[in-house]
């Protein structure tokens, strides 16, 4: 059986904006991925979900300014659980230099700022796990 890409998607903490993350989850499903949707959860729960669900990717949505504290915590917890190979993606609203710092220093694989086309997100994710797109 083909191995589908498994993504754990979460809103970080108290962040209230759900339109984006839910949209991305739907588009990822349309692209053949299995998306475990967590809703609003905190870093410990997110890391635990990535562990139990054998996730390839963790997707975090963040529009409320807590990205520099909570997102690096997620990366750290993943590493502590032995999940270094899990790629962490982020989407949301933040200063471009924060995005750069998250990618360079805090182990986030890629940050998608607003206006990123869905297709770009999908391609990046497939590329990051080194697998071809799932064809039904």
């Amino acid at each position, binding site marked *: 059986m083909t191995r589908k890409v498994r993504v754990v998607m979460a809103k970080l903490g108290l962040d209230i904006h759900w339109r984006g993350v839910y949209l991305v*989850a739907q588009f990822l499903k349309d692209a053949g*991925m299995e998306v475990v949707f967590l*809703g609003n959860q905190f870093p410990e729960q997110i890391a635990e979900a990535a562990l139990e669900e*054998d996730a390839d990717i963790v997707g975090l949505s963040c529009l409320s300014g807590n990205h520099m504290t909570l997102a690096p915590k997620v990366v750290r917890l993943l590493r502590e659980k*032995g999940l270094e190979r899990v790629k962490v993606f982020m989407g949301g609203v933040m200063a471009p230099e924060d995005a750069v710092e998250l990618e360079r220093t805090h182990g986030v694989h890629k940050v998608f700022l607003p206006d990123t086309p869905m297709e770009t997100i999908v391609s990046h994710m497939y590329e990051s796990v080194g697998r071809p797109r799932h064809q039904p």
Partner: protein
Amino acid sequence: MSGGLAISPDRDRGPDLAAWIDACLRGDKRATARLISMVERRDPGASTILERIYPHTGKAYTIGITGPPGAGKSTLVDRLVNEFCKDRFSVGVIAVDPTSPFSGGALLGDRVRMTPGSRGRDCFFRSMSAGDAVGGLGPATQDVARVLEANGRQIVLIETVGVGQSELDVAQATDTVLVVLTPESGDTVQMMKAGLLEIADIFAVNKADRLGADSLALALAGMLDRKPRAAGAWRPPVCTTSASLGNGTRTVYDSIWRHHHHLRDTGELEQRRRSRLEKELRRKVEEELKRVLWDELVQTEKMSAWVEAVRKREVDPQRMARRIVTERLEAKIHRRTRMTRTKKEDHAGD
């Protein structure tokens, strides 16, 4: 925590696989998660995994939770897990959601119901997509439940959406079946048609604070009372719950245990499990036969010629099929008989 597991994460073969399996048996979650993926996908190592963990299974108590979409199953499952964990049980949950027939992808949303209060409990929660299974429970689900048991889970809850045939699947896969309904679930006649009355061991009418919940509970109880039942047989209780408020969860929990004791005391537990294993064995025999048929027996290169013959109306499909199968079987048997005879003849002179 899996800090000591020094295995390269992407090598799921050979001696690495053995190490993963050992880790799972020792309680490691990461290894368990990996094994579940392999078993679900029917990876090459899957049969090794299942073979090795099998002796460690058979004791866990399994509970199936089904019901129409929107009934609040996930919330109730989350609250039940809390109850089991409070009583010091190690719990596993498998939540099955449908797969998109168009893309093959899936949106698995059962973890959403977990509250911040669920941190730190002894539970392994795994979301699964139903895959090609029409009934909503893939064949892999039972195997995944076994892996969870091998990981030390004493209670395994399997949650599925009650559409189509999945109620039957769930009934065949678990010891206790809990059916969750709401006042919006539709009228009771519909439910009878769906076979829910037959498979349910416990009913939970959820969203009890809503209008119609009490009358639904009453109607259900009435139907159950009118069903003929042998003396000493289990009479499914009808509980009312308000899972989001946590009301009534304890009653459902207690009913599960009562059912468990009933099955144990009457010997029905062993009976059910036995018959379940027999069904599984039969199913696997059929799977194996199918595999042998297509991989080894049938000369599929001749398929287009066969289709042509049927298309030209030289022979009808039924007869063609019989011909294909019996010809090959006879040929195989013939060859074997000849070989045996040759051997006998060879040894005749000994």
